[in-house]
């Protein structure tokens, strides 16, 4: 039973990844860069063929149609979660193939790191010079952000009707936030709504960036990176290379937009505005954003920048780190300590639940902060009964415990990752900031791993551990943990 689910998810993800290679393949062919074209064409063909082969076997075995599959009971939770973990690993490995084959990346570990960094929307690169890469390769790097941002499983559920209600469990294993729900009655419709909004926002940003003077490819690449809250750029100096304040403001606005819960846009479009007005999380995000921007801008102005430039740089960098995008319009690793500390703290916060951003998520911190307030009240009035409210509605007490446990798991993984970095010889600042940057899917760290530097010089083993940390961060820890616990059993069962 579970083997079929695994195969089905695998086929769909392979087919999806292969089809998405068509865009860079076409660009490479247009540019006449035949080496790159071959690098994309090979996995494109292999992926489609493999998907077709396995797909045919599944359909022979089941001889069922889509309706029967849709009516089938949903997979058991463990299988669904493990399948999503496997699918993510598969798609990351698949995405690494063209990067390695075209010769852009020196080793397999580097190619895998770059691909994982892309799909998990981290945006940390091992490349010192991305400007020398073929246009198609840069487009593919940014496209991985875009696919991974909203989620490959969400896209599969939106496009392939065969999962039925099982799609809910699959999407839940991938989407972010403490409580998951459906915007529409059918999970496939929810996935479609989310992807439609996502495509519309991407198109809007591409057009605006084009108006700001970027070329079409650059505009599209940066729109992919921004909406996916990734951070890959087509330039070594990131957004700063374009020297266009207008482009910076466009990116700032869209980074903030990508950090918001996409359900907010859906409610606004569906004219359910009263739900948005009561929403706690966007308000908390906006408040946090304004405070952090003011603090960083003040630090920059104190350091001798003009007021206008301070605000612009602060607004951009704060949006970049808070949304876990990781673009840079300045080298913040050289800023005043208070500004750096602020940005580092924001790495832990992340965006809203249900957004493409990483991190712990604003709503979890809000719940914990309110629970802390309740604890203070409880000290004063030991017999008091209190409730933590989100969106004006009391949350059940179990959720507070779950959020606390999640934050523990998140911080524990970050600490282990920091230890791994230190064991590999990184200085404490780099080890700690890189760990939070990887688990939070941010991208740049501080010190010698700042926005202008790259991760290329790290040992291969550390790169692979960082790959695990990025995937665990993107899938909110538990999915990868369950995969690790469950995978051996699945292999045994498949062999038996």
């Amino acid at each position, binding site marked *: 039973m579970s083997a079929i689910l695994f195969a089905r998810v695998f086929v769909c993800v392979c087919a999806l990844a292969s089809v998405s290679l068509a865009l860079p393949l076409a660009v490479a062919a247009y540019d006449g860069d035949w080496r790159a074209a071959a690098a994309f064409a090979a996995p494109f063909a292999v992926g489609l063929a493999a998907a077709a082969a396995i797909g045919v076997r599944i359909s022979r075995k089941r001889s069922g149609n889509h309706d029967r599959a849709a009516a089938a009971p949903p997979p058991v939770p463990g299988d669904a979660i493990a399948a999503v973990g496997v699918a993510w690993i598969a798609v990351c490995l698949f995405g690494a193939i063209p990067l390695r084959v075209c010769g852009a990346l020196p080793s397999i570990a580097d190619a895998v790191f770059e691909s994982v960094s892309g799909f998990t929307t981290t945006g940390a690169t091992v490349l010192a010079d991305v400007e020398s890469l073929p246009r198609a390769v840069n487009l593919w790097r940014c496209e991985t952000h875009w696919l991974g941002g909203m989620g490959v499983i969400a896209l599969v559920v939106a496009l392939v009707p065969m999962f039925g209600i099982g799609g809910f469990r699959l999407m839940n294993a991938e989407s972010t936030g403490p409580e998951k729900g459906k915007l529409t009655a059918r999970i496939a419709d929810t996935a479609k709504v989310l992807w439609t909004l996502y495509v519309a926002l991407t198109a809007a940003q591409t057009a605006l960036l084009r108006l700001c003077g970027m070329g079409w490819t650059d505009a599209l690449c940066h729109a992919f990176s921004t909406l996916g809250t990734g951070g890959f750029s087509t330039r070594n100096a990131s957004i700063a290379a374009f020297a266009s304040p207008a482009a910076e403001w466009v990116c700032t606005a869209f980074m903030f937009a990508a950090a918001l819960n996409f359900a907010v846009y859906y409610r606004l479009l569906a004219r359910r505005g009263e739900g948005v007005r009561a929403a706690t999380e966007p308000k908390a995000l906006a408040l946090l954003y304004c405070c952090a921007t003011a603090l960083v801008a003040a630090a920059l102005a104190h350091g001798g920048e003009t007021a206008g430039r301070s605000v612009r740089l602060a607004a951009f960098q704060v949006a970049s780190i808070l949304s876990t995008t990781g673009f840079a319009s300045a080298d913040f690793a050289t800023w005043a300590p208070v500004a750096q500390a602020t940005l580092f703290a924001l790495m832990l916060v992340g965006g809203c639940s249900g957004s493409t951003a990483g991190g712990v998520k604003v709503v979890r911190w809000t719940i914990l902060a309110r629970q802390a307030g309740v604890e203070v009240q409880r000290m004063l*009035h*030991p*017999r*008091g*009964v*209190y*409730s933590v*409210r989100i969106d*004006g509605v*009391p949350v059940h007490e179990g959720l507070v415990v779950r959020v606390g446990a999640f934050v523990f798991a998140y911080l524990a993984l970050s600490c282990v990752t920091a230890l791994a970095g230190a064991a590999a010889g990184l200085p404490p600042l780099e080890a700690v900031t890189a760990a939070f940057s990887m688990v939070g899917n941010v991208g740049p760290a501080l010190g010698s791993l700042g926005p202008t530097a790259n991760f290329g010089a790290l040992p291969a083993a550390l790169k692979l551990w960082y790959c695990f940390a990025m995937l665990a961060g993107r899938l909110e820890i538990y999915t990868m943990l369950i995969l690790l616990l469950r995978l051996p059993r699945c292999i045994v069962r498949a062999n038996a």
Partner: protein
Amino acid sequence: MADARAVAKADFAGGFRKRSRISPQCLDLKLHDMKTIVVGAGFTGIQLSRSLVASGAEVVLVENDSARAAVAREQVDCAVVEADGNNPATLESAGLADADALVALTDDDEVNLITCALADAVRPSVKKLARVRNYAYYERTARPELASAARRAGHSRPVFGVDRMLNPDVEAAAAICRAMEYGLVGNVIDLDGGHGIAELAVAPGGRLDGVALRNAAERTGRRMLVAFVSRAGEAMLPDGSTTLQAGDRIGVVVDAGNRDEMFALAGAAPEGLPRRAAVFGAGLVGRFVAKRLLADGGQGEGLRALFGSTRRRRREIVVVDADPARCREAANALPGARVLCGDVTEEAFLHDEGLDACDIAVTATSDTERNLVAAAYLKGLGVARTVALTASASFDEIARKLGIDVAVPLRDSVVDAIAGHLRGRSVHSVHSVCNRSFEIVECDVEPGSPAADRPLSELSLPGDFLALLTRAPGGGPFAVPDGSTILAPGARVVLVMRPGSPRAMRVFSKP
């Protein structure tokens, strides 16, 4: 505008006693001759029937339980039909055809609603009241502000044809709040169109102290319209010769422009709201009372919200219950209140939370004896004022002996509420003031009533009622009338009157 109104009013108040003579048409009005069918002869049904019979109404009780029907026959001087109320044939035989009102008071919400629906199908013109205990049925159907626009505008029939639903918990909470209002000075009754009636205390040495109402305008430089005066616990309708004294509590008609002036005029800030109020019992009644207290803390609507800015003070509302599950519900439902899980008889708990020093304590659990004992106990610990919820008015004497300030009888408050709504089809709202000595009644002048198309001076019943504000049929702003004001049929009039005064009500409804 306000000045002209006030002058006219001063003349009116001072003048109508000598000028107007009671017309013979008004004097020979029959007393209450309403025909009412009451379905369900439980405690409330019997109490209501008794009070209606006492006020001269004709009542038919419908009860399907023979034992209860027998008790009803003994206790109430009315016809008792022993049959199912949710049967149109029974209702017809009970005289639905020429009844004015139907009140469904069985123990079952659904039976009450269906009875009204059946009666509505046959006789839509009969006014129907139903008791519903399930708050979900009540919440959105009985509160006009939550109803749909079509329903508010009268374009659609009410749910199940029920003109008025009554929820015992809501009525009890309203009764508790009314009882507290007397202490929470600065109370304002909101009327339509920005008008309200503010209850003020005349401060010693204030500008109103010792002023006769007919001179009030020149003595204070402010024109004012006084609806009622309460002196040493005795309430009266004022006229021009009434002289205000320190300590009097007066009801003043206010509008959006002169509220603050009126409060300033009374000399001192009103007594102030209780800073700390404790509600014991987190059931529905307790939660409604707490919600109302929280809403009064300056976040109310309309006039109340504007007032809030002038008398906003941090108020602490504590809700106490011994049951953790009810506490959890209350904590979820009342974001502004502090909910404590504890027992009222634990002295250490009360002391730790400072509950023995609160300004007012309301005991509103479902257990009458517990409420009485707890209220007496709290009073003994030093709580300034205590209000206890009791099952019925028969506990009033015990409560008084225990030193409890106010006992609110749950069942009687439902009976009162129904009786209030039965007072006439044209009555829109009734607010009790001055410890229930007076009522502020909003009603319509019915076509064919003694009041229709006649000047007010011909209608007056001195000491019975006072017309405060009138409004032309079909809306528009309220205006202060004088003796020559002629009320068209359908006009809205705001009266202050003795509670349930049948003579006053008869003036405005069809004979």
